[in-house]
């Protein structure tokens, strides 16, 4: 797949460049001629959508940095100055703030697609791990970006997250002091977060480059999970997937625009429009929605260190997933039992997200106050998150390893083209009847 190139330089300049720096060849091979399975569905368009998200965040972020002042006395007002006085500043800042949420929506769909279709399995382990690295970098970037407006949620969010490191034995306190550059979250913290918030997206872009490289070595997985067998199974990336990805990107941008123009603060938190005040904590402190599942896991454990370990463990387990899943079948289309567990896993993640946004003692079923076991109120968000946390880890550590050895998958198709052609709704008239004509 890789190694062979169909690029033929047409003009003298192209030939001249091609013998010196074959960038046009690289672009041609990876974005135009790249053989792509022809059965990719819309879940596969999120890679392209994520590239657009990263681009939007980079461009808007660089522009915002031209106007933002990283100082505790000026940060809040400088963000509002962007909103009020800078030409189109409101547009750029709302694009950046909502863009973060859009980025995470897309990355979660992208990850669940990978989980469902087994895109992490051999030979794509490195591709998957690079994706996990990107996700980790995204979380760090998003967290530090949220601190920059220096509102109440920014400030106290920074306090809570940096204090997580205080849970580490022996070195915890030294590390938090080092992170803060002082004895509390203050101006030195804001300055370094601004610096790192500027740096990390470029690291993300770098790892994205590796991620795409690692994608182009084995080529795309596909909804059947069956390897590409012949040219019959593929189409060139351009124009087939440029237009399909393009369409999906524009549909995604419509969702994005709905938030930016008509509900720009819906995904944020009202308290963050109150300037940061170290003396008063907001009544109900929650992270941004994309961190809620991890926040729920953190709070599900009554022990500080245990909570932190479990929370980081929830991300760490993703890194070793390729070796936890013992099944040779990639796509869950052909693993009916695993499919069921997968959807419960998806539900568990949503439940964790929901619990993360609620007060731990809130009742799951309102009005039912007698469901007790000893001192514990089982009808509480904290117990619901415990159940969901348990399932989260069980899915990776028990279900996937065991199921691969015990389940009986459905028969796999011979090739990508086989189910495509036998699917009457998708086959064009005549094509299904005489596939051999399509030489």
């Amino acid at each position, binding site marked *: 797949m890789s190694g062979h190139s169909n690029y033929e330089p047409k003009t003298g300049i192209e030939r001249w460049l091609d013998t010196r720096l074959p960038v046009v060849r690289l672009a041609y091979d990876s974005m135009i001629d790249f053989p792509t399975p*022809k*059965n990719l*569905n*819309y*879940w596969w368009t999120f890679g392209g959508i994520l590239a657009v998200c990263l681009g939007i965040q980079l461009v808007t972020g660089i522009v915002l940095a031209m106007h933002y002042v990283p100082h505790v006395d000026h940060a809040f*007002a400088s963000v*509002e100055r962007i909103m*009020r006085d800078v030409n189109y500043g*409101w*547009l750029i800042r*709302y694009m950046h703030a909502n863009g973060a949420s859009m980025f995470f*929506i897309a990355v979660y*769909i992208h990850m669940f697609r990978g989980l469902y279709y087994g895109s992490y399995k051999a030979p794509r382990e490195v591709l998957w791990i690079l994706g996990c690295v990107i996700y980790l970098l995204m979380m760090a970037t998003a967290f530090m970006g949220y601190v920059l407006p220096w509102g109440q949620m920014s400030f106290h969010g920074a306090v809570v997250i940096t204090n997580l490191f205080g849970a580490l034995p022996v070195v915890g306190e030294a590390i938090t002091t080092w992170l803060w550059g002082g004895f509390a979250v203050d101006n030195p913290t804001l300055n370094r977060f601004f610096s790192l918030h500027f740096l990390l997206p470029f690291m993300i872009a770098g790892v994205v480059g590796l991620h795409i490289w690692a994608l182009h070595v084995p080529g795309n997985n596909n909804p059947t999970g069956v390897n590409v067998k012949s040219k019959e199974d593929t*189409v060139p990336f351009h*124009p*087939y997937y440029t*237009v*399909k990805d*393009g*369409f999906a990107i*524009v549909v995604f*941008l*419509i969702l994005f*625009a709905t938030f*930016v*123009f*008509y509900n*720009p*603060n*819906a*995904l*944020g*938190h*009202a*308290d963050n*429009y*109150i*300037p940061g005040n170290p003396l008063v904590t*907001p*009544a*109900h402190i*929650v992270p941004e*929605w994309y961190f*809620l599942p991890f926040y729920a896991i953190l709070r599900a454990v009554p022990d500080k260190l245990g909570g932190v370990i479990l929370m980081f463990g929830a991300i760490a387990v993703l890194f070793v997933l390729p070796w936890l899943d013992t099944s040779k079948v990639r796509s869950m289309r052909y693993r009916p039992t695993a499919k069921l567990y997968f959807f419960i896993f*998806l539900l568990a993640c*949503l439940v964790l*997200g*929901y619990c*993360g*946004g*609620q007060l731990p003692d809130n009742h799951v079923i309102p009005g039912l106050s007698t469901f007790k076991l000893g001192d514990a109120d089982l009808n509480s968000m904290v117990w619901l998150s415990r159940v969901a946390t348990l399932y989260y880890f069980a899915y990776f550590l028990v279900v996937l390893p065991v199921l691969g050895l015990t389940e009986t998958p459905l028969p796999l198709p011979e090739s990508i*083209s086989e189910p*495509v*052609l036998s699917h009457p709704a*998708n*086959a*064009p008239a005549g*094509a*299904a009847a005489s596939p051999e004509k*399509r030489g």
Partner: protein
Amino acid sequence: MLRKGIALAALGLAILAAPAAQAAGGALPPKHVEFSFEGPFGKFDQAELQRGYKVYREVCSACHSMNLMYFRNLGQKGGPFYDAKYKNPNDNPYVKSIAKDYQIKDIDSETGDVIERPGTSADKFPSPFPNEAAARASNGGALPPDLSVMAKARHHGPQYIYSLLTGYKNPPAGLKVGVGQHYNPYMNGDVSAAWSGPHDKVPPGGFIAMAPPLAAGQVTFDDGTKSTLDQQAKDVAAFIAWASEPKMEERKAFGMAAMIYLFIFAGLLYASYRKIWKNVAH
């Protein structure tokens, strides 16, 4: 499969977004009140903004700063005193005359002395107190919050401001209200410590240091609108909503053009996509 997935994703989004919408504490949800600026086509009502500014100026500004606001903002596009004749708000004579009524502290460039000079359109709204300590000292220890972005700093901001201003109530029997405190069911907070009644019947809301600020007839509206408490509260809520989001009209207008463009663009791409994939079995 796709449709089911989209439905699932939408459901997930709804669940995840839900916590953001719920307010902390046991306050009553804000009263429902219709504002002209709601919805995708909503615009600020200039007469209402003018009345609201008068309420802010004559009542609120005695204690509440708006330190992100400049006088020029009053004359900018969409603002209370915008005049199409003066595209540059700094030239707007009405804005200039408002600014001139204020004495602004400055430094004399020759002598270095602290002086007061008449305001210009480039000046900020002056703060009622020189610093936070002074503000607290004059208000029984409570700090009157800055109102510049108040409508964004509370859930359902404009409705909340209106409800709070019109929602003062006599405390129910069994609720002990401290000196310099007032009971308001729309205020965030928890009054259970001051409640001697049954535990499951704690009244909603909280205590607020601000005495009911508005009363019928307190502000005389220049346009002849009847000056009821309700009218004042609604108008000042609208004014603060505008001050919090002065580019809202521009945003919605830009958004409408962007949405129409995106829908046409999506349609074209879909047609192109169908054409290209027409003869591929997939």
